[in-house]
């Protein structure tokens, strides 16, 4: 076996120079007047069986990445290969069987289930679309999946409005699992839930990952949640990836000043812990007209002249620890 094949075995998803620009149209003829650079030149890999956490503030492009790697959104340019096959170049016909292997869990459990469909049918809908098994077998799979997420057989005939938020999110997980996928994008799966049930959903995700050997891209804005579930963590700022490292390395020794600020802004519910907090000035600039050079330089506490001129390269500053910053040795 060659080296590249070995690497393909390890890397389930490889993303190279991914770009997604959304057009802004204006005027009578709706001409494109500008581009929102939602995702700009992002590269990363997701290894088989790992959870890659992706954090950033709203509008930093993390959801767009999640949707582009599933081709729910067409990228402007770049390469996304899943198990060694470039899915961006594929036609819809070739893509459809691949969709079984790639699923998504949505953020809002209230909006992502069809209110007029019993949840058992929602869970088996994917099997129907991919023409797997007979209706009776599909129903059995749906019930098996609902049991995996801690629900009972009698729940399958109920409608979404009869469930609490946490239960609905578990139904969303069951639905993503029904097709026995390899890769699941979890787009803020717990941020709409009360804190007292968040960890229940997180535990279910972890258990299922072990049982089915799943790979997760876990998108969230809560750094404490991401720390609990991820093996590696990527930090996004204004459409760029600024840091990517093993979880422990990132939380112990964040290299990028933005990551440092994010971590220091997290409150700790204990009166005896008083910390030095790096509070950034101002707001995130508009992605319509991002700053030149390093996109973070307008708010960076340690920016130098170079930062406003030349964009820093995303490079491996420590083994396995990638960062885009001029000030990191």
């Amino acid at each position, binding site marked *: 076996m060659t080296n590249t094949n070995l690497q393909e075995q390890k890397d389930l998803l490889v993303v190279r120079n991914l770009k997604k620009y959304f057009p802004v149209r204006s005027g009578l003829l709706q001409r494109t007047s500008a581009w929102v650079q939602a995702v700009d030149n992002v590269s990363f890999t997701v290894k088989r069986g790992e959870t890659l956490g992706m954090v950033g503030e709203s509008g930093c492009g993390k959801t767009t990445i999640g949707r582009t790697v599933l081709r729910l959104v067409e990228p402007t340019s770049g390469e996304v290969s899943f198990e060694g096959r470039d899915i961006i170049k594929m036609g819809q016909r070739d893509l459809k069987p691949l969709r079984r292997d790639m699923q998504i869990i949505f953020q809002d459990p209230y909006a992502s289930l069809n209110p007029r469909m019993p949840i058992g049918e929602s869970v088996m809908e994917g099997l129907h679309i991919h023409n797997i098994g007979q209706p009776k077998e599909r129903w059995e799979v749906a019930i098996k999946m609902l049991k995996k997420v801690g629900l009972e057989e009698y729940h399958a005939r109920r409608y979404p409005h009869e469930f609490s938020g946490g239960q609905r999110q578990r139904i969303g997980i069951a639905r993503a699992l029904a097709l026995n996928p390899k890769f699941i994008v979890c787009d803020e799966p717990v941020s709409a839930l009360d804190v007292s049930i968040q960890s229940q959903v997180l535990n279910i995700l972890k258990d299922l990952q072990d049982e089915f050997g799943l790979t997760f891209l876990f998108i969230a804005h809560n750094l404490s949640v991401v720390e609990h579930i991820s093996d590696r963590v990527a930090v996004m700022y204004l459409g760029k990836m600024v840091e990517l490292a093993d979880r422990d390395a990132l939380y112990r020794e964040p290299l990028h000043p933005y990551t440092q600020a994010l971590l220091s802004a997290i409150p700790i519910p204990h009166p*005896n812990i008083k910390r030095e907090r790096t509070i950034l000035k101002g*707001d995130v600039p508009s992605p319509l007209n991002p700053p030149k050079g390093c996109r973070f330089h307008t708010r960076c506490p340690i920016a130098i002249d170079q930062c406003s001129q030349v964009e820093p390269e995303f490079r491996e500053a420590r083994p396995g620890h990638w960062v885009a910053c001029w000030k990191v040795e």
Partner: protein
Amino acid sequence: MPTENLLSIKDLVLHFNTQKGPVQAVDGVFFDLGYKEAVVVLGESGCGKSSLAKALLRLLPRNVSKYGGQVYLEGNEIMGMDEEQFRQNIRWVRMSLVPQAAMNSLNPVLKVGDQVAEPMIVHHGVKKEEAYNQAAKMFQHVGVPVDFLDRYAFELSGGMRQRVAIAMALVTAPALVILDEPTSALDVLTQANIFNVLKRLKKELEVSFVLITHDIATSSELADRVAVMYAGQIVEVSDAHRFFSEPLHPYSRMLMASVPRLRANVEPEFITGQPPSLLNPPKGCRFASRCPKRFAKCTEEPPVANVDGIQVKCWLYTS
């Protein structure tokens, strides 16, 4: 009546009529708040904490079926006041509100400066120019550039809009500001900024806060006292220092244990089951069905026990 407390709430009740019957959104809420203090009302979605804010300010919808109890503000009983007295002397004069999703509660067709100045004109009858000066002063306090007075809400970022809403609540120099989930829609860095502003305002303007939130970690930044709400009732009132190191009520303990902490080795826990419906809450302790420590007594309504100054509504602490 006690005058050492700015706010003293006793047995506040607010029930709503619905097609399915009365909803007991606020059912026997009590706590005290001193001058220049902040109390955090913690609770999960649907526990009645936003209804508590509405009950305090008498911003009531039409379907109220029961509204009662005693609220003392600066020593005066305000529940007995008639609507006109309340409007002239209390609401937005001594007590104001930063509403939930404040960033969307600004009028899109008015300049934000006009909106912040308006309470001064309505309640203190000052000239427009003077009200504008006061609004400009408030903008400085909350950290919004003064030239933003002439802007519209859509021209401001989420964090700036939130600050404008806070300025609007503070412009008449009230003694008490109720903040209903002031930062829940904001990013973590913006949240930290807003909380720094609130901490500074508490010192500079000598104002008290009732902070209503579900975000335990963020609330610990500002809290002097903590009141935990569950299914329409207060289950624990404690001082913040003692609450965040050792809560007493089983619900408070489990809630604290479910907060994911940074760089911690302990896995967060979760509470099984879900809160009872406020349409027809169970008799006795409302948390009993989810409580790991329940015993025979819990089918009866628990009294409020006093444990070294901490009030706990739980049978475990009655001697």
